[in-house]
């Protein structure tokens, strides 16, 4: 059997195991909260009848393990149960919003990843030049500000002063792709600025790390152009650390959008999560946590697998 397949399978199993542990933690954490969910939800004025009805409705009377299993079974098929706040099915509540969040993250990533990798390569090529320093310092400045601050600055410049882009990203199911891209440009740019620096700096550092190696010197001594040495000889060997930083940042894009969504009034998961937390809507919080956790684990899994594939020693064994 190809060893790489074996490694990938092993990683996949570990990823699934991690995800399962996360489901246990999410479920147990809510169970272990002090007090009884029904009394918490219905308050002091609750009658024994209404409490019993609440317990019946949310299936709180069965033993914990049984409830966990049916919750897990539902979650796997996309059914997260019903909201405690408004009794509607959670999948209906968060379905479109999850898609919106992933769209925005994907949009930001499509901008950020190419920009980060290319500018990282340029910074390595012109290492220690004015260009390198300006790039390094400006991206560092961008991550030093909180995201809502960047969001407001962008709104001030591009929306209030220049009037090029709308300050509200109010999309719905019927919004076309072109309009959607236009309306969400500012939030995507905000996210882009936040994640750009890490990815760019890692690309630069990973490439610079390799430049003293004999095979890079060899490429120079073969009379290869400097840009080609960086892009063709250094980059493929620097991929593993770059991939893992990109994956980490993509996961952040999905999990960390809450504030940016609120600033731009974008109908994503963030807004739902904020509402659910303030309403103590436990079942929705569980569902959102599970989606975030799964995203993190899957992206990191993907990064692991890609890093393995990027290593020719593993891909082409002796």
């Amino acid at each position, binding site marked *: 059997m190809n060893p790489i397949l074996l490694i990938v399978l092993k990683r996949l199993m570990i990823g699934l195991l991690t995800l399962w542990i996360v489901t246990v933690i999410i479920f147990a954490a809510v169970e272990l909260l002090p007090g009884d969910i029904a009394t918490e939800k219905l308050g002091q004025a609750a009658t024994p009848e209404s409490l019993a009805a609440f317990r019946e409705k949310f299936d709180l009377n069965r033993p914990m393990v049984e409830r966990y299993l049916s919750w897990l079974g539902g979650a796997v098929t996309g059914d997260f149960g019903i909201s405690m706040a408004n009794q509607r099915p959670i999948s209906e509540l968060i379905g479109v919003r999850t898609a919106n969040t992933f769209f925005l993250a994907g949009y930001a990533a499509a901008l950020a990843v190419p920009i980060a990798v290319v500018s990282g390569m340029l910074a390595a090529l012109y290492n220690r030049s004015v260009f390198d320093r300006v790039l390094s310092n400006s991206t560092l400045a961008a991550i030093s500000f909180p995201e809502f601050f960047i969001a407001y600055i962008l709104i001030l410049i591009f929306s209030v002063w220049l009037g090029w882009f709308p300050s509200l990203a109010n999309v719905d199911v019927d919004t076309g792709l072109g309009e959607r891209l236009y309306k969400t440009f500012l939030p995507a740019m905000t996210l882009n600025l936040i994640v750009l620096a890490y990815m760019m700096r890692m690309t630069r550092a990973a490439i610079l790390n390799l430049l*003293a*190696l*004999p*095979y890079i*010197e*060899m*490429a*120079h*001594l*073969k*009379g*290869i*152009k*400097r840009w*080609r040495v960086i892009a063709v*000889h250094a980059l*493929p*060997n620097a991929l593993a650390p770059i991939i893992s930083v990109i994956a980490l940042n993509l996961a952040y894009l999905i999990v960390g959008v809450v504030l940016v969504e609120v600033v731009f009034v974008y109908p994503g998961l963030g807004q739902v999560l904020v509402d659910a937390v303030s309403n103590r809507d436990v079942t929705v919080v569980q569902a959102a946590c599970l989606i975030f956790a799964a995203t993190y684990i899957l992206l990191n899994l993907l990064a692991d697998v890609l890093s393995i594939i990027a290593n*020719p*020693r593993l891909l*082409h064994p*002796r």
Partner: protein
Amino acid sequence: MTDLLLDMKNIKIEGWSDRQWKPIIKGVDLQLKRGEILGLIGESGAGKSTLGLAAMGYTKGGCRIREGNIKFDGIELAGASSKALRQLRGKRIAYVAQSAAAAFNPAFKLINQYCEAPVQHGVMSKEQAEKDAKELYRKIRLPDPDMIGFRYPHQVSGGQLQRAMTAMAMACRPDLIIFDEPTTALDVTTQIEVLGAIRDIVREFNTAAIYITHDLAVVAQMADQIKVLLRGDEVEQAPAREMLANPKEDYTKSLWAVRDFRRAPPVPREGGETTLLEINTIHAAYGTVKVLDNISLNIRRGSTVAVVGESGSGKSTLARVIMGLLPQLEGVITYDGESLHKLGAKRPRGLQRHLQMIHQMADTALNPKQKIKDVIGRPLSFFLGLKGAAKEARIRELLTLIELDPDEFMDRFPSELSGGQKQRVCIARALAAEPDFIICDEVTSALDQLVAEGILRLLDRLQRELDLTYLFITHDIATVRSIADEVVVMQNGVIVEQGSKEAIFSPPHEPYTELLLSSVPEMDPDWLTNLLKERDTQVTAG
């Protein structure tokens, strides 16, 4: 038209260290005719690689050419634009690096790396270059020349990689190739094939070459002219045969004489010979890969047993098994009649103390954050419980024993020592435990010949003074001749032959021992030619 290809005049190169420019090359001239091979020899730090690279108008990071002219075929390279230099490099001047394994990009197939220079310089199309590559792979005697190019560097052996790199350097049919220690990292038997292949191909295309090496016997086979460098200065230059027969300068003579060290024959011991270490039918493996197969060996007290073999023969693994770093699968090791636990950590401390080891790379075997007195002091307090003044006095004694001045060296860090001094500190650390038995694992391989000889002399003196027993692991036959009482020849995890040095070095030999011994380069400039001819006739006859 002049036949002078390269004319370097008064080259001065500096390197940036300790916040100032320090001279590396101090005004050297170098002339090379078309088709001529110049051997550049010297110890490490002599500046031979720096000078070789300067012939391409290139310096390593942190270095600069301060003065001098480098005229290549009428083109001035010193101060030339990077574009002008780039158009020459790879096309008219090519480079072959010391470690082919490190100089090939691990991410690409060999043939793609071959094709890069001709395609990028616009000399050939990709298809032509691939066809040409297979042709050259055949000429340089790589196995399966049509397919080997489609492998990745890690899928090919070291000797094959070095030949593939020579072929790659030839891709644009350059006028000049710089060979920077191309066979230093190879085993002797592999080295021969690579040397033969390099010499043939360079002659066939009438390519001029600068051949950089520290090995005189190698340069004797390759070069028309030899230039000796010492600390950035030229010592002398002469046609190869003249230089070999009659070196003029004292330094050159000392280089020539280095291999002559022989230890005094051991005196018979009072009370007869006793066995100190007995290795009995040892089998060992890394995972499922078997590395030691049925190794049995007796080591007499006070003797030096040399284990020779090529890389992969299992000689270092044997050391690891004896030290208890790799538990054996089968077999027993007894030390002075007492059986040793498989795991070194489970052996009683008193027993651990008696077996010490000195490693090949003194650089990595010393903790860079510890002062010399702490390096040597640690085994003193760990094994012997010495403290305070007693410990310091013993550290001073040990440093004096290894011929380093205690006042000067006690408070230094390893980075402030030369390679030979570091290896001496490692010896002192081993001695600190007051052992009876020391494993020396390639202790001189990373050192220059003169320095290595000093280490061997020191080890010999210590053996006589302290009644030590050595297991000396090496791939260098000259070292074996210098210091061994008994020799064990290993190949692929098996002992091929063992016996006294005299018995092993005098015929008849086992076939593998014969191959190993005949592969050691000799100073005779016709040695390689004769040997290859002889082996060819043997192959045809057989």
